[in-house]
């Protein structure tokens, strides 16, 4: 991709405009009469139409034209911005996004949306233009799906899926048995059935996709919209048939679009993310080379060389800091999409939800933001689905009818703390315990701290939903969320008060490329421990070492902390140093001590990912090059803490 491709430039601009329009629409849903919002939405649509036509996105321009016309009438006070109209334009947004990105769109989807829009503008009255088709209340879909042969053995259940489709609207289900083999050849536990479903539903394609959301990876699914035959002079055809209408405005549009672009280019330059990544790599190399220079210079008597080395050290550090900032984007990019999610969730769950967003100007590395999106969506859905009660339950509990979900981001040092708070019913600890016992995660009657109990929610295969909904509760997700966050070298924690709600907090490092590390030596090898995980370093005297043979526990401020002898773990085969140290590391609430031979000091580390060949060695998360050109492996703390805790648990059981 070149950074100057005009089509790509338009797509990015369209993306921004659509987001702007979407935010405006969502605000309008709360403040229907707000003039500024109406104007902002209108302007966004207007600009999108103009630029679209300029870059040859004719279908998009024609389609947007209709939405713009609708909002023009709102602007002139001819029609009110009803919730229905807002909902129509929101659905139309998704269609525009598809057109702008050049994704294939369902034939007829555009017309159906425009018909809805028209009906909304007219308030359901007969359309003015005789050429406009009446609004269909529902769209008709043809869905075909089949499962792999081993699906039933693996627990897939097609009947509930069919039931869910029936819940969406009028549904005609037919099983296709053409692939069922002859009786003698049939393996009766295999699934050779396929289904054809004709569905008439007011819901969109998303609702259908949501039904299959958890089995989509392993099944074949075809969804096509069956459009009713429409008049030939439908709005789209009309727009395409009379391009003069669009063209006539094009000249002014273009000027406007160019104006906005000119204004923009003065302040920002778009750079493809890959180039930033390349630069980041170079800066990393520079930091490594600089630390080698520093070592050489420090052992040299040449003052000029030392002066230059110091100068370069300063520059490299500044360059690194600048580079970090370049890759940072405000989390509003991430949080912005949740307003739409909440809007949809309200419709799906029938709950009233207010979303509060705080600290949206906090910045995070672009890559981190991208990888955070899915886990956050899951956590927010969970809060809406399990956390918040229905309006009736809330009123009965003496709470306001609408539940609140609060997303906040705040920077603290080299980390960003993101919290998802809800004021719902809180986590039902008894159910968590019962569920965990049922799934064999804990033994019945096992003594757990409150925190350990709550964190069971993030254990693989855990789900407390008594009823399975579309949103959550199929036992997938929370463990994946935890994995993803730990993959970002972050940590996650949950606190909850019964009846008052829950708080899930994520601590995420600002960047993935460079960390401050503690350089240590074990035997003849050097390793790096991420400084963010280090709590303290203590001496392990030979006497203590001997005493604790067999029971690797040390008492730190009246608390027992298990420790791991890295010398044994990595089988260095060397004798321990007389003055071994314990580096106490933590993830969230869990602490483990790592016994090392020597602490060499802090070290700024440029992380190099391990090759695919070494990627599944659990104890290391990457490698770095040291000032003297040697290589040190970076320890993966969550894995080691887990190992230490497990070891400790075994010890306790054995003891």
């Amino acid at each position, binding site marked *: 991709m070149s950074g100057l491709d005009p089509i790509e430039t338009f797509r990015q601009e369209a993306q921004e405009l659509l987001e702007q329009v979407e935010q405006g629409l969502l605000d309008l849903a709360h403040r229907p009469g707000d003039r500024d919002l109406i104007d902002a939405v209108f302007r966004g649509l207007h600009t999108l139409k103009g630029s679209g036509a300029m870059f040859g996105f004719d279908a998009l321009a024609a389609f947007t034209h209709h939405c713009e016309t609708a909002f023009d009438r709102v602007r002139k006070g001819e029609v009110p911005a009803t919730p229905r109209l807002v909902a129509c334009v929101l659905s139309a947004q998704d269609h525009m996004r598809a057109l702008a990105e050049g994704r294939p769109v369902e034939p007829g989807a555009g017309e159906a949306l425009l018909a809805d829009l028209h009906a909304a503008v007219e308030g359901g009255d007969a359309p003015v233009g005789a050429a406009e088709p009446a609004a269909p209340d529902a769209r008709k879909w043809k869905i075909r799906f089949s499962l792999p042969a081993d699906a039933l053995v693996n627990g897939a259940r097609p009947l509930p899926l069919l039931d869910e489709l029936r819940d969406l609207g009028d549904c005609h289900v037919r099983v296709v048995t053409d692939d069922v*083999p002859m009786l003698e050849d049939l393996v009766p536990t295999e699934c050779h059935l396929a289904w*054809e479903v004709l569905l008439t539903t007011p819901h969109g394609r998303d609702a259908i996709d949501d039904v299959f959301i958890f089995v989509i990876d392993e099944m074949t699914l075809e969804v096509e919209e069956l459009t009713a035959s429409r008049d030939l002079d439908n709005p789209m055809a009309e727009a395409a048939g009379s391009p003069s209408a669009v063209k006539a405005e094009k000249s002014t549009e273009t000027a406007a679009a160019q104006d906005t672009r000119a204004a923009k280019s003065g302040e920002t330059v778009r750079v493809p993310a890959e180039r930033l990544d390349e630069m980041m790599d170079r800066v990393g190399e520079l930091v490594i080379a600089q630390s080698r220079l520093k070592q050489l210079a420090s052992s040299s008597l040449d003052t000029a060389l030392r002066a230059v080395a110091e100068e370069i050290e300063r520059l490299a550090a500044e360059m690194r800091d600048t580079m970090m900032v370049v890759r940072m984007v405000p989390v509003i990019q991430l949080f912005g999409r949740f307003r739409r999610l909440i809007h949809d969730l309200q419709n799906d769950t029938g709950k009233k939800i207010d979303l509060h967003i705080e600290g949206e100007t906090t910045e995070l590395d672009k890559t981190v933001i991208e990888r955070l999106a899915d886990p956050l969506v899951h956590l927010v859905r969970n809060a809406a689905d399990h956390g918040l009660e229905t309006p009736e339950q809330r009123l009965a509990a003496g709470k306001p009818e609408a539940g609140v979900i609060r997303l906040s981001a705040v920077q603290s040092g080299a980390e960003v703390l993101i919290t998802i708070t809800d004021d719902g019913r809180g986590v039902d600890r008894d159910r968590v315990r019962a569920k965990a016992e049922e799934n064999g995660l804990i033994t019945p009657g096992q003594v757990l701290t409150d925190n350990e109990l709550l964190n069971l929610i993030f254990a693989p295969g855990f789900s407390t939903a008594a009823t399975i909904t579309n949103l959550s509760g199929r036992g997938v997700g929370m463990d994946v969320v935890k994995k993803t966050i730990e993959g970002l070298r972050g940590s996650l924690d949950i606190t909850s008060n019964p009846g008052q709600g829950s708080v899930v907090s994520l601590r995420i490092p600002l960047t993935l490329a460079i960390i401050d590390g503690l350089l240590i030596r074990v035997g003849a090898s050097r390793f790096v421990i991420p400084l963010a995980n280090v709590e303290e370093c203590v001496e392990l005297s030979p006497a203590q070492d001997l005493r604790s043979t067999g029971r690797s526990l040390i008492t730190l401020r009246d608390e027992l902390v298990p420790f791991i002898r890295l010398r044994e773990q990595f089988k260095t085969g060397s004798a321990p140093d007389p003055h071994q140290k314990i580096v106490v590391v933590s993830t969230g609430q869990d602490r483990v001590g790592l016994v090392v031979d020597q602490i060499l000091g802090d070290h700024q580390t440029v992380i190099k990912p391990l090759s695919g060949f070494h990627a599944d060695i659990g104890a290391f998360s990457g490698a770095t090059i040291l000032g003297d050109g040697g290589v040190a492996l970076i320890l993966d703390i969550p894995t080691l803490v887990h190992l230490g805790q497990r070891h400790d648990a075994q010890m306790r059981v054995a003891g």
Partner: protein
Amino acid sequence: MAEVYLYARGGVVPEVSEHLVSFSGNLTIGNISDAHLALVDAMGQDAPVVVSLDDVSEVDLTFAQLLEAARRTATARGQIIRLEKPAEGALLQVLQRGGFLDPDDADRANFWFGGKTHS
């Protein structure tokens, strides 16, 4: 656990007696292989097969698929297989939910409502 009885009895058809296969209990993915063996065995006899489902309490898709396989096999070979009574209870629910009773496939729907397969 499904119990399967297999015995010949004087049928309505004068020249051949029918084979009755009776299924009872739960017929789900866990034990469907037993039902499969019983059906293969019954179809191997040179006689029309009648399937009795009187005491069936729970069934799942695998059972519907199994009988569908038997029906299609019989049709292909010109054999006769039929249900003793039209499908009811748990089986009828599975058939309705799974879209087996769609009138577009008349032969299939007919079979489940107690009709015979014809060669």
